[in-house]
C-alpha cells in the first residue's frame, strides 16, 4: 500500500508540468524549495534537539552572496554558487561555535539574535545589499546549457535538487552518525560518558544543516530572481520552524508536508487578506495548543486507531 502510494506520488510529481498550468508548476517549485529548507532545519530541531530561530540566515546569506556575485561582480553561476555555499558553510561553522555554547532556550535566543543582526545588516548596509530595495536583475543558471527560464524546466531542476537533498539527509540521519545525534538529543550526558563528543556532533550537524539551508537559498534566489532583507527576517525563520513543527519535527517527511501547508496557506491567504503575519501567529497558537506533535505523527496515530478498530 505504502509503496503504491509513493509510486503514484512520484509519477504525479514527475509529470506535473504536463497536466497543470504555469501557476501551479511555480507553486510546486516554491513548495520544493520550502521543503528543502524545512528538512534542513529539521536536522537541528527534530533530530538534534536544537531549536533554531535563525535558520533564515543561511537561506538569506547564500542568496545574497549568489545575487551579489552574479549581478555586481560578473561571476558565472557555477562559481558564484560554489562561493556562496562555501561562504554559508563557513558562516554556519562560526555561528555554530557561538550558539552551541548554550543549549535549549539559550541556543534559541542566540540564533535569533545572530539572525536579527544579519537582517539589520541587510537593511542598513545599503551600499552593499541595496537595503530595502533589494537586489534585482538576477538570472537563472543554465546547467549543461539547459535553460531554466520556463516554469517546467525550473520545476524539474528543483525536483532533482530536492530529491537529492532528501536522500542525502536521510542517509545522514540513518547513518551511525545520525544515531549518535539522536543519542545526544535524548541523553547528552550518557553519550558523553560513552566517549562521544556531544559538542562536536551538534556542531557538525549545525554545519550540515547550514549547508542545505544554503542550497535552499540558492534555489530561492534563482526562483525569485530577486532578494530582499525580509528573507532574513524572523518571519522567514518562524515560517519554516512552523512548517517543521506542524509537519512533525523528528520525522523524515513531516517537515516537507508542513512546509507545503504553510506555503499553500500563505499563497491562498494572501489572495484574500493582507494580514499574513497575523494569520501566521494564529496558526502558531493553534498548532502548538491543539496539535503539538504535528500533522504527520497525528495522522499516523489516527490511522493506527482506525486500523485498531477495524481488526
Amino acid at each position, binding site marked *: 500500500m505504502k509503496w503504491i502510494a509513493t509510486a503514484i506520488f512520484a509519477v504525479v510529481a514527475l509529470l506535473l508540468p504536463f497536466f497543470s498550468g504555469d501557476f501551479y508548476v511555480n507553486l510546486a517549485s516554491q513548495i520544493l524549495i520550502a521543503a528543502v529548507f524545512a528538512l534542513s532545519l529539521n536536522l537541528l530541531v527534530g533530530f538534534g534537539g536544537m*531549536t533554531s*530561530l535563525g535558520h533564515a540566515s543561511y537561506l538569506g546569506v547564500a542568496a545574497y552572496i549568489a545575487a551579489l556575485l552574479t549581478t555586481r561582480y560578473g561571476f558565472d553561476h557555477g562559481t558564484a554558487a560554489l562561493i556562496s555555499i562555501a561562504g554559508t558553510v563557513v558562516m554556519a561553522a562560526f555561528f555554530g561555535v*557561538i550558539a552551541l*555554547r*548554550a*543549549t*535549549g*532556550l*539559550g*541556543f*534559541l*535566543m*542566540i540564533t*535569533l*539574535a*545572530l539572525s*536579527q*543582526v544579519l*537582517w*539589520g*545588516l541587510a537593511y*542598513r*548596509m*545599503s*551600499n552593499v545589499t541595496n537595503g530595502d530595495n533589494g537586489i534585482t536583475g538576477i538570472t537563472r543558471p543554465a546547467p549543461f546549457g539547459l535553460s531554466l527560464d520556463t516554469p517546467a524546466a525550473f520545476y524539474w531542476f528543483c525536483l532533482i535538487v530536492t530529491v537529492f537533498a532528501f536522500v542525502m539527509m536521510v542517509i545522514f540521519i540513518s547513518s551511525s552518525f545520525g544515531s549518535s545525534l539522536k543519542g545526544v538529543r535524548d541523553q547528552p550526558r550518557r553519550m558523553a560518558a560513552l566517549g562521544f563528543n556531544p559538542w562536536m556532533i551538534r556542531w557538525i550537524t549545525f554545519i550540515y544543516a547550514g549547508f542545505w539551508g544554503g542550497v535552499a537559498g540558492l534555489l530561492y534566489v534563482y526562483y525569485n530572481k530577486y532578494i530582499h532583507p525580509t528573507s532574513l*527576517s*524572523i*518571519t522567514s525563520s*518562524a515560517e519554516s*520552524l*512552523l512548517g517543521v*513543527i506542524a509537519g512533525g519535527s523528528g520525522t523524515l517527511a513531516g517537515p516537507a508536508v508542513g512546509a507545503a501547508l504553510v506555503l499553500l496557506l500563505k499563497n491562498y491567504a494572501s489572495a484574500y487578506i493582507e*494580514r499574513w*503575519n*497575523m494569520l*501566521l*501567529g*494564529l*496558526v*502558531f*497558537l493553534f498548532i*502548538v*495548543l491543539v496539535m*503539538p506533535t504535528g500533522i504527520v505523527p497525528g495522522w499516523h496515530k489516527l490511522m493506527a486507531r482506525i486500523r485498531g478498530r477495524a481488526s
Partner: protein
Amino acid sequence: MQFWIIQGLNSLSLGGLLFLLSSGFSLIFGLMRLANLTHGAFFMLGTYLGAVVLRDFSGLNIWVTALGAGIVVAAFGGLFERLVLTRLKTNPLGQVLVTLGMAFIISDACLVLWGGDSIPVPTPRSLQAPTRIFGFVFPTYRLVLVGVAVVAAVALYVLMDRTRLGAMIRAGVDDRQMARAVGIPVSRLFTIVFCLGAGLAGAAGVLGGPILSAYPGLDADMLPLALIVVILGGIGSLFGAFIGSFIIGFIYTFGTTLFPELAYIILFLPMIFVIAFRPQGLFGRVGA
C-alpha cells in the same frame, strides 16, 4: 566635546529604556524558564498606546499615560499567561513558539489599527527646554529618562531584595521545585512576574516614544536589543540587566553615529566575547 557628551547622554537614556525592557524579560526568563519573544511587541504596544492617547488627548501627562499603558499591557500579559502559557507548562518549546505567534499577532494588529506611518510622540512641554550644565546643553527629557530608569532600578531592587514577594521570586529563580515544596505559590508568582515584566515593557514603550516614535517594526528592533542585553548581563539577574543595558546603550548609540552601517556588527561583538568566555553572562545566576 559637545558631541561626545550629547551622545553619552543619548546612550544613557537608551540604556535606561533597555533596562526597563530587559529587566522584565530577564526576570521572566529566570523564574519561568521562558524566553518571552512577545516582549518587543509589548514594548511596541506601549509606544502605540502612548502615541495615540497623547495625540488624541493632548492635555494628558506622559507619566500618567505611561502608567496607564503599563497597566493595560500588564493586564493583557497576565491574560495571555493565564489563558495560554499555563496550558503549556510541560512544553517549554511550545511556550516560546506561542510567544512568538503572539508577537506576530500584536505587531500586525498595531499595523491594522494605526497604519504604516510612524506616529511621533511629543516631548512633554515642561521638559522641552534644554538644560544647561557647566555650559553644555542637554535635552531635558533624556536626563529625566535616565533618572526614571535609575528610580525603577532601585524600586525593583527593593522589591526583589527587601520584600517577601521578592524573596519568593528569588527562591523560585534559584530552585523552582524546592520553592514549591516549601509552600511558595510558584504558578501565581509566574503570573505576577509576567504582568510585571509586560507592564514595565509597556511603560518603557511610552517613555521611549518621544525618542523613538511609534512605527511598524519597532518590536523587531527592540527584541534583539533586549536579547543581547540579557545574554550579556546574565539571565535572571537584575544587576546584570542593568549593566548590560547601559553597555548596549553606549555601544549601539556610538555605533550608529560613528559607523552607521556597521552598528549591528559592533553590537554583536561584546555578545560573542561574553558567550565565548562566560556563557552564563556577566552576572548570570542560571545557565541558559
